[in-house]
């Protein structure tokens, strides 16, 4: 196994073994599951229990296919009233002419009962009314709210994971520099192997996190049934999100390693990383703005500009349909940027990581050979 892989493996095993990593992963999974079930729990009731006293059941199912109805027959109005008051049934139809409820009836149920009742009565009188044909002349907006929701969640996940892993890269670099262990390491492995291994290892951990989130999220969405509201093309979106995470993480991690290598103490990591954290935040804010206006000019233009594209393009892809060539072009630009930043980061790192002591200036490091 070569140096790079050994370094990456150490990063992974060290982290995976910490309590923090395992607990963090569990909490993330629980949170994601909770978020996926929340609309189901908090959202309106879409199953009703109805009663009849001396009445025919109304064909509600045909009018509202997504809702489930359960019917119960009651011998007389007294028993029915008691059941309504006990909350056993939502409403009871009495003699085909009256509905008993506890307080004001649920709007949706009320409208449904009235219109189906009217239809049944008219039908009995020989009048049949063809249902109105619905036709959208605008864009397909059926999935609009689902898409927007997915985009918001995605960009938040990307932001948190990238930020978290990037900080770990910087802290790891400073740990090795500050403890001087880098001196022995660099007498056995090349700087690019040490840096590359660290970025690779911590990136893999980030991917493990991301995959967990996606699997738990999609799994619970399917289990809770809200997945039926999802737009088509989810597998493609998931694949794209994985790629965008890798690209965005690689970009910011290379910069984090370069900035981190300028200082020798953990206390200085925060301040030396400020420009970078600002950049990640700006990327996040732009992407968050884009969730509201995914088809706007700003979102469209910025989705091609690295590193903003790493979060804005996934937002666009989630929120609207983006032609494949646009995704390809944006990814290509990002790949080039990542390569450039990796080369730059490796150069800074190589020059700075053995110069312990006071905080170095980026300019000085660039000037000295």
């Amino acid at each position, binding site marked *: 196994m070569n140096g790079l892989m050994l370094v990456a493996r150490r990063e992974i095993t060290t982290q995976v073994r910490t309590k923090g990593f395992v607990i963090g992963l569990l909490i993330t999974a629980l949170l994601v599951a909770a978020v996926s079930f929340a609309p189901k729990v908090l959202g309106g009731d879409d199953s009703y229990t109805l009663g009849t006293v001396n009445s025919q059941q109304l064909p509600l199912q045909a009018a509202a296919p997504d809702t489930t109805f359960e019917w119960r027959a009651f011998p007389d109005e007294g028993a029915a009233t008691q059941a309504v008051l006990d909350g056993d049934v939502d409403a009871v139809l009495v003699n085909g002419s009256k509905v008993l409820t506890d307080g004001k009836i649920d709007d949706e149920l009320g409208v449904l009962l009235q219109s189906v009742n009217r239809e049944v009565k008219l039908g009995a009188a020989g009048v049949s009314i063809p249902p109105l044909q619905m036709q959208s002349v605008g864009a397909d907006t059926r999935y609009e709210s689902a898409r927007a929701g997915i985009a918001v969640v995605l960009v938040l996940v990307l932001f948190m994971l990238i930020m978290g892993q990037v900080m770990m890269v910087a802290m790891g670099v400073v740990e*090795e520099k500050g*403890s001087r262990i880098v*001196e022995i390491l660099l007498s056995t492995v090349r700087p690019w192997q040490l840096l590359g291994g660290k970025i690779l290892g911590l990136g893999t951990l980030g991917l493990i996190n991301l995959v967990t989130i996606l699997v738990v999220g999609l799994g619970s969405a399917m289990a809770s049934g809200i997945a039926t509201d999802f737009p088509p093309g989810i597998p493609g979106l998931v694949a794209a999100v994985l790629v965008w995470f890798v690209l965005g993480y690689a970009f910011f991690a290379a910069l984090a390693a370069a900035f981190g290598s300028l200082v020798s103490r953990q206390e200085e990591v925060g301040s030396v990383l400020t420009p970078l954290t600002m950049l990640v935040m700006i990327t996040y804010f732009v992407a968050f703005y884009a969730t509201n206006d995914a088809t706007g000019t700003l979102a469209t233009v910025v989705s091609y500009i690295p590193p903003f594209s790493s979060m804005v393009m996934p937002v666009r892809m989630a929120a609207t349909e983006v032609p494949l060539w646009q995704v390809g072009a944006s990814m290509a630009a990002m790949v080039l940027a990542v390569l450039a930043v990796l080369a730059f980061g490796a150069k800074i790192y190589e020059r700075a990581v053995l110069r312990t002591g006071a905080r170095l200036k980026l300019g000085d490091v660039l000037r000295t050979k």
Partner: protein
Amino acid sequence: MLEINELRKRFAGGPGAPAAKIALDGISFAVRPGEMFGFVGANGAGKTTTMRIVMGVLQADSGSVTLRGAPLSPDDRRRFGYMPEERGLYQKMRVAEQIEYFGRLHGMSATAVTKATDDLLEQLGLTERKNDAVQALSLGNQQRVQLAVALVHDPELLILDEPFSGLDPIAVDALATVLQERCRGGVPVIFSSHQLELVERLCDSVGIVSAGRMVAEGAVADLRAAERNELRVVVRNPAPGWADGLPGTVTVDGDRHTLRATGGDDQEILRRAVKAGRVEHFGAEQPSLTEIFKEAVA
């Protein structure tokens, strides 16, 4: 044979140290296979800088380091064992795991590294601590781990920057034994130290650096021979003026007169002393390495 040729290194002034500083001023020396080489010199003389350049963690401004006549490559260095002056270990990693990790980085297989680690832990008396995190160890024990990290891959050459500092006498002996064993196996060992008696006891050769240059180099015995040996004669209760006309100086302590002389006819001095009184001591004084050192860097 490892050869260090005319290394020069100048540190530019920075925020912490405004003036530029010449750390190495053309230092040269060679270490032969199976040789234990003691690297001594005052603080700031340039020992650490030289070792860092040999290990490739610092670039020289000019000069070269060659192994068997060819410039050192990264692959050569991977087969070296290095203990830096500023110790560095992963504090949270376990002792055995850490040693194994470095063994793997040096290209060892997983099985070979496990065995080598166990053997080393045994030799260095760390077997019981193998599963402890490094940060739970005392400084001296951390230093033993550091040494194990330098030794695990059966290095071709050892470069140790002050390996004995901070060790108790028993650990010093244990480390000395380990180094002598490696040395007998043909591995050249270069180590720096300020404990000159230790260097004198262990080393085949010493190099004395001063202000970035090698001011004396060779076997301790040769360095001694190069010094003008001093004759010391102690005479009890001699006749006054007994040493008149002899070279050297006389110091008097009660009835004991001590003559120290370099050069001159020692037989003549002996005759005069015997005539003057009771001769308690007559002999050439071997300078200690400490004296040679002080002389050389003066």
